[in-house]
């Protein structure tokens, strides 16, 4: 990409969509929760579940051990439910969806209509609090795969939801997870039946549009015995000078021999150059490898958000299960990230691998924080961790905080970390061959991230690569 082009590439998803919204009354209360539950026409058990979480929330305290500090959030000053008015009666097909919404998604590069025709990805789009459209339903139905908004799953597949919802992230886990359990509005639900390989990538696109709104989506993915699914998640938000809260929960369950690949390209609005506005991305993501030989792989490219604070984790319960975590976290200007993973080894012969690449520029702060815990019964387990940080300029910070626990004699844990700046020799070499400074940096950074980028599915890899360049724009020199 030419540097001219780079310069014009500010946050291009920062537009707002003028669309009439239907919102819940402001504030967090039992009334709000009942309102959300009612509007979703939820069964009583679901409402009870939410209320249980809400009562639990009252005794929980917001955690404060993280590195990036933020001003206190006034939870009573937020809208917990916001939906485009036209969605009040759910459209049956894409043709009934408000054209403005379709246009928004086209702008974002997610043409829902075209997607239907092109083979490849099935998309579930979530706009503010509700799921707007899901493509490719028919084809997935044939295989018995369920891919629908979670609100629909609560109605149509209550047994599955009851069994698995909250089984990986319990109601009382921690403040933001509990908050989500109480007020979550929508999200995706995926169920892959036994011995089925999902024929296409499943994808959800999240968009925050309304102001003063918190977004709380909940995703639940269940891969039954011997199945495979690859799931993609993307997110954007308009430019606003207020901070918006995004507290999602993602739960993955992999049974015997199943594999889940979860990829995220997170590009929420990061705030402007002076650190005004931006999303607080406080997300809880956790996967449980319940069955033998199961595998969960997290890949994340974190370029957006004012504050990113999340730890996609794997609980390796089943024997021989595998957990993987590949991450790129880029922070520029005043962005802050505190991210990493937890690998909890419980079963025998479990393996985990962590590759984390952190890049900080401007006045940003980037922290890798992770836990590798090998239990006494997790015989012959293995972990390999590598976290590298790249610093650009001396106003930013890069930090590594790994926690390593090994409780048995047959397991091996290896951890490596380095912090450095871009090698002058490499830059000089590139310059010599006619690349200007920014192109050279972009090239080197992409090389630095390669191990993670190549884990992404094709559709995302290209986008991610561009994002890496854009996020660092203006940070050189």
């Amino acid at each position, binding site marked *: 990409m030419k540097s001219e082009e780079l310069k014009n590439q500010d946050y291009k998803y920062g537009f707002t969509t003028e669309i009439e919204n239907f919102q819940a009354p402001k504030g967090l209360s039992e009334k709000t929760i009942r309102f959300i539950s009612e509007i979703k026409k939820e069964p009583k058990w679901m409402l009870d579940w939410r209320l249980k979480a809400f009562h639990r929330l009252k005794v929980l305290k917001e955690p404060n*051990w993280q590195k990036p500090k933020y001003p206190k959030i006034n939870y009573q000053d937020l809208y917990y439910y916001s939906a485009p008015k036209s969605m009040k009666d759910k459209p049956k097909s894409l043709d009934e969806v408000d054209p403005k919404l379709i246009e928004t998604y086209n702008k974002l590069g997610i043409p829902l209509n075209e997607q239907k025709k092109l083979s490849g990805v099935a998309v579930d789009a979530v706009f503010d609090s509700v799921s707007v459209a899901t493509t490719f339903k028919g084809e997935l139905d044939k295989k018995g795969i369920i891919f629908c908004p979670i609100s629909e799953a609560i109605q149509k597949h209550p047994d599955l939801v009851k069994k698995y919802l909250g089984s990986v992230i319990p109601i009382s886990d921690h403040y933001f997870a509990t908050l989500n359990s109480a007020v979550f509005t929508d999200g995706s639900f995926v169920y892959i039946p036994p011995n089925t390989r999902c024929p296409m990538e499943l994808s959800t696109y999240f968009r925050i549009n309304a102001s003063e709104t918190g977004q709380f989506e909940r995703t639940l993915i269940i891969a039954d015995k011997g199945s495979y699914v690859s799931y993609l998640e993307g997110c954007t938000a308009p430019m606003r000078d207020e901070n918006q809260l995004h507290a999602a929960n993602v739960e993955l369950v992999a049974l015997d021999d199943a594999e889940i690949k979860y990829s995220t390209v997170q590009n929420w609005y990061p705030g402007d150059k002076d650190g005004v506005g931006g999303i607080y991305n406080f997300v809880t993501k956790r996967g449980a490898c319940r069955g033998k030989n199961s595998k969960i792989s997290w890949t994340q490219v974190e370029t957006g958000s004012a504050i990113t604070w999340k730890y996609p984790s794997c609980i390796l319960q089943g024997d021989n299960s595998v957990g993987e975590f590949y991450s790129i976290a880029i922070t520029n200007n005043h962005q802050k990230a505190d991210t990493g993973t937890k690998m909890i080894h419980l079963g025998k012969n479990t393996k985990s691998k962590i590759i984390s690449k952190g890049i900080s520029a401007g006045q940003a702060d980037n922290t890798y924080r992770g836990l590798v815990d090998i239990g*006494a019964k997790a015989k012959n387990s293995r972990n390999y961790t590598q976290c590298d*940080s790249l*610093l*650009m*300029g*001396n*106003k*930013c*910070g*890069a*930090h*590594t*905080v*790994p*926690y*390593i*626990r*090994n*409780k*048995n*004699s*047959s*397991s*091996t*844990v*290896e*951890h*490596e*970390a*380095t*912090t*450095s*700046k871009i090698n002058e020799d490499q830059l000089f070499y590139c310059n010599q061959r006619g690349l200007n400074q920014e192109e050279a940096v972009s090239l080197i950074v992409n090389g630095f991230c390669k191990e993670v980028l190549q884990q992404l599915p094709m559709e995302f890899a290209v986008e991610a690569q561009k994002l890496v360049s854009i996020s660092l724009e203006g940070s050189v020199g």
Partner: protein
Amino acid sequence: MEKLFNIDLKKIPYSNDKEVEDRKKNLELFLKGGFPNKKNENWKFSDLSLIISKNFKNITNNYDYKFDKKIEPINDFDHNKIILVNGSFKSCDFQFEERGKIKAERLKSFKDFENESKNDLDYLNKALSIGGFNLEVKQNYKCKKPIIIYNYFTTNLNNKIINNSNKIKLSQNSELTLIEYNICEKSKFIKNTYEKISIDKGAILKSIILQKTKNNGYFYKNISGIQDYNSSYQNFILSSGLKFSKIEIDIKLEKEKSSCYILSGINLSKDEHQEIKTQINHLAPNCKSYQKIKNVLENDSVGVYQGKIFVKDIAQKTDAYQLSKALILNDQAEFNAKPELEIYADDVKCSHGSTSGSIDEEAIHYLMTRGIKLIEAKKLLIKGFLNEIFDNVPEEKIRIFLEKSIAEQIDEIR
């Protein structure tokens, strides 16, 4: 239930009224929090509160003792002596050095230690400290022989707590090797030490911590050091044998070209819990720090390493390295590590590594095919694993002495 504490401030020798008042305040501050537990991030892996309440009751600070033991000096190499009994200064002997170049006395004033409380144990120390030694090496003087601090503990220390503080100052261009040698009897007691070190321009301090035998001590030591231009601090921690030990080291590399080395080789057996916690603060450019921590863990022992490298934004050209390795020999043993980096300067070389695992089966197999018995093969590999630490001790006689004492410990492995 019996009370955990039974502390009497009047029993502290040489205290005046003003001091007693200060001590009272600090004791109250300590009693409010008690011994730190795992909710405290710094004590996450070593729940001292639990360990103390399991093993102690009615803890007192009675310092009456009789000491009539004959000193049995180490004969392996010439050295100067400082003798401490139950933490307080008894005598010193600098026979190998020039007169007036080294000064050592009982530490009287705790003034310099004010406002530095970082945890509840510091409050406790301030409340009960009986003063250890105050050691100073004068400008441009390079000590000819090392100093051994014979740290004797008497037999009647069951359920007692000893608090002392030491101060070490190396003036410009001076040099000293200091060996702390702990000689404990069988009684079960707690020791809480605060040590303040300042190393001036161009000075070099080498410090070695060692236990004579296995014992029932529960030791906490907090070392706080400041280093000036081109100074060097080398710390060898070889203190295997205590029931509980936590050594916390906070070093400030305040001026350019200063360097700090922390090396540790520890083997832990039944019921032992040992933690090394370091914070190396790179506050000026061109400084170097190097940490290498090795643990061998047997039975149900727990080894912990929490290391932090902090690099300030102006500390360009920093070279910092951190490595922790653990050999876990038993399924009940546990190794926890938290090697942390906090970096605000971009032109730095900082890296860390941490590994933990079992002994290499292939190496054992190799040795056994050469006719070496399993247990011998294991010991050989453990020795090799730990010996790497001593390679950095330059004086040959001291190195041989250290290797010998570690070899004795390893021979106890069954």
